[in-house]
């Protein structure tokens, strides 16, 4: 990121040799501020501070910070908040124009009070487009590094949008985040210059977008590493080809809401490391092929259908949140089996997170036969069904080191299996017990139990883990519903349980 040093001038700071380091700053029009020079390793001040009227301990230190630092601070604010600082003092008057970030949010800019006093000051009524245009006009030609525009209400005007996006591209933008109302009947046509933009590193688009497919010979998105797309079926066909066009893409997020059945798509990316997919397909069939040999992280949510994953040799962490309308699924048990099959394809990973919905499907599956997850060292299981699914998972995770279980409160709970079902399975059923015992005794180092309620079967489970886990270092238990008296009671009981591991610490929060 480039930060301005004086009067809109850009200067990249280089610190190659310590002794040649200089942080110089001068402002001809405002009162003189301190200039710092490093001369043979000693700091020399050449000007007095201007706040003579204040006592030293109440000095205005912030205004004396270098301009580049003040701009960096302002870049953590929205544009409106930054503009407000222009009235603080003369030092701050033009700082906001130098901030390389523009952040416009429709709701933030248009929620104003209509008090009589305010009305009397207003000669004109400013709408969203007016405000954005005005900021553009007043900030001059200074560099834009990040542009965020959320226009998800009001009268959306694609012409303005087009102007502003082109303006940011012309100013070397690196990060664009656009969100337009998905229900608007006017879509936004992405300009060609966006595809050829050499400086663009991150692009987030949400809403109705369209584009003309660039010619296959041209180099498209040459620097784009991060791409997040969220869209509806209108632009569905188009936009799924976008990620494939990016030669250096590393982080892709696609959230799609589609009403077409039998939709087929193929992603290929040799550089992709992170993939987040959310498929809201109204439970219609689809087929997705993903070839991303460098993929390290996969987060899947929504409706699970046919997903073909080629070459997962680098995949380390997977998060699964199956989210479907239960009234629309024909075979509930088959869906559960499909979920197990999907997880089974990921058997070389090191870390797995299963949401409450996912565990519910796994629990109700009619048939499943998961392979062994030799490398899995971290497992997080959520939901009321997590205790039902846990023994099956523990059976195939011989090298599990960290186990996190989170019991979520859920309103819709379709599982008939009782609360005590799984504990008994872990504790007493023979073949299961052997494998689980081996894993617990040699590998498990950490156990987190979130949503602990001090119920009998929970205490039984925790007691069992404490007894068996030889190398357990930390057991962290957190509860949401217990008051401090109840917590103390439970804690006392927990501390009395025999621990196989001498170095085990119990943390209760």
């Amino acid at each position: 990121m480039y930060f301005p040093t004086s009067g809109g001038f850009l200067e990249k700071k280089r610190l190659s040799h310590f002794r040649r380091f200089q942080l110089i700053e001068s402002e001809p029009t405002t009162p003189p501020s301190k200039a710092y020079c490093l001369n043979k390793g000693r700091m020399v001040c050449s000007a007095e501070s201007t706040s003579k009227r204040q006592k030293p301990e109440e000095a205005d230190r912030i205004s004396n910070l270098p301009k580049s630092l003040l701009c960096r601070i302002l870049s953590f604010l929205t544009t409106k908040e930054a503009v407000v600082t222009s009235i603080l003092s003369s030092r701050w008057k033009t700082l906001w124009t130098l901030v390389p970030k523009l952040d416009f949010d429709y709701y933030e800019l248009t929620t104003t009070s209509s008090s009589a006093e305010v009305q009397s000051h207003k000669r004109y009524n400013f709408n969203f487009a007016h405000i954005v245009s005005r900021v553009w006009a007043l900030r001059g030609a200074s560099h834009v590094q990040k542009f965020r525009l959320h226009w998800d209400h009001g009268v959306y005007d694609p012409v303005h949008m087009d102007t502003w996006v082109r303006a940011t591209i012309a100013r070397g933008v690196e990060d664009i985040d656009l969100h337009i109302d998905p229900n608007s009947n006017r879509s936004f046509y992405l300009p060609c210059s966006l595809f050829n933009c050499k400086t663009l590193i991150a692009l987030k688009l949400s809403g109705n977008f369209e584009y003309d497919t660039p010619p296959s010979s041209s180099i498209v998105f040459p620097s784009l590493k991060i791409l997040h797309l969220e869209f509806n079926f209108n632009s569905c066909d188009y936009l799924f080809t976008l990620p494939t066009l990016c030669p250096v893409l590393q982080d892709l997020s696609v959230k799609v809401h589609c009403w077409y059945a039998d939709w087929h798509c193929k992603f290929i990316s040799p550089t992709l490391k992170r993939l987040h997919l959310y498929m809201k397909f109204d439970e219609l069939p689809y087929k997705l092929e993903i070839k991303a040999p460098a993929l390290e992280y996969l987060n899947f949510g929504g409706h699970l259908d046919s997903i073909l994953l080629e070459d997962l040799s680098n995949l380390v962490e997977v998060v699964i949140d199956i989210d479907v309308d239960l009234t629309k699924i024909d075979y509930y048990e088959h869906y559960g089996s499909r979920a197990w099959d999907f997880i089974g394809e990921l058997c070389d990973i090191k870390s797995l997170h299963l949401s409450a919905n996912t565990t519910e499907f796994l629990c109700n599956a009619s048939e499943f036969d998961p392979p062994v997850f030799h490398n899995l060292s971290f497992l997080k299981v959520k939901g009321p069904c997590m205790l039902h699914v846990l023994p099956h998972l523990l059976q195939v995770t011989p090298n599990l080191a960290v186990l996190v279980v989170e019991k979520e409160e859920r309103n819709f709970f379709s599982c008939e299996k009782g609360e005590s079902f799984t504990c008994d399975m872990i504790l007493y059923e023979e073949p299961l017990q052997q494998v689980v015992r081996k894993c617990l005794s040699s590998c498990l180092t950490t156990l987190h139990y979130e949503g602990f309620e001090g119920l009998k079967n929970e205490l039984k489970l925790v007691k069992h883990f404490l007894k068996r886990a030889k190398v357990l270092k930390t057991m962290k238990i957190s509860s949401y519903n217990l008051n401090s008296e109840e917590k103390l009671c439970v804690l006392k009981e927990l501390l009395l349980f025999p621990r196989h591991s001498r170095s085990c610490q119990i943390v209760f929060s």
Partner: protein
Amino acid sequence: MALELKSSDNKIFEVEELVAVQSETIKSLVEDGCADNVIPLPNVDSKTLELVLDWCKNHVDMKLDEEKLKEYEDKFIEVDQAVLYDLLLAANYLNIKDLLNRACQKVADMLKGKTPEQIRETLNIVNDFSPEEEEEIRKENLWAFEE
């Protein structure tokens, strides 16, 4: 490998290279082979340097535990204004990106959701505008000053 850093008040700190190179400034010195002797840091006093080095050390130790690191960072940055500005300047001087951003974020949070009068009060900024000048600035960006 250990490096020696000297603060502005002549206190020497011995740190592991892995911790010290979180500072891009120090990292370039090491890479250029200028870090054999004590490295003087005349812009950073010992109190601030100690805090900075604590930040760097914890970022090496807790690198893999995101949750724990975030907890540490949130606690670390709860300091009073004077210390915060010292940290900010030190992080800028030593070029420690994550500390710089965190400190800037903290200062920005002090500006958020406040009227100009409240900001001036919190940060001890003196209003050196005449009433006419102030009115003109308010008019220039009226949309931002309506509450």
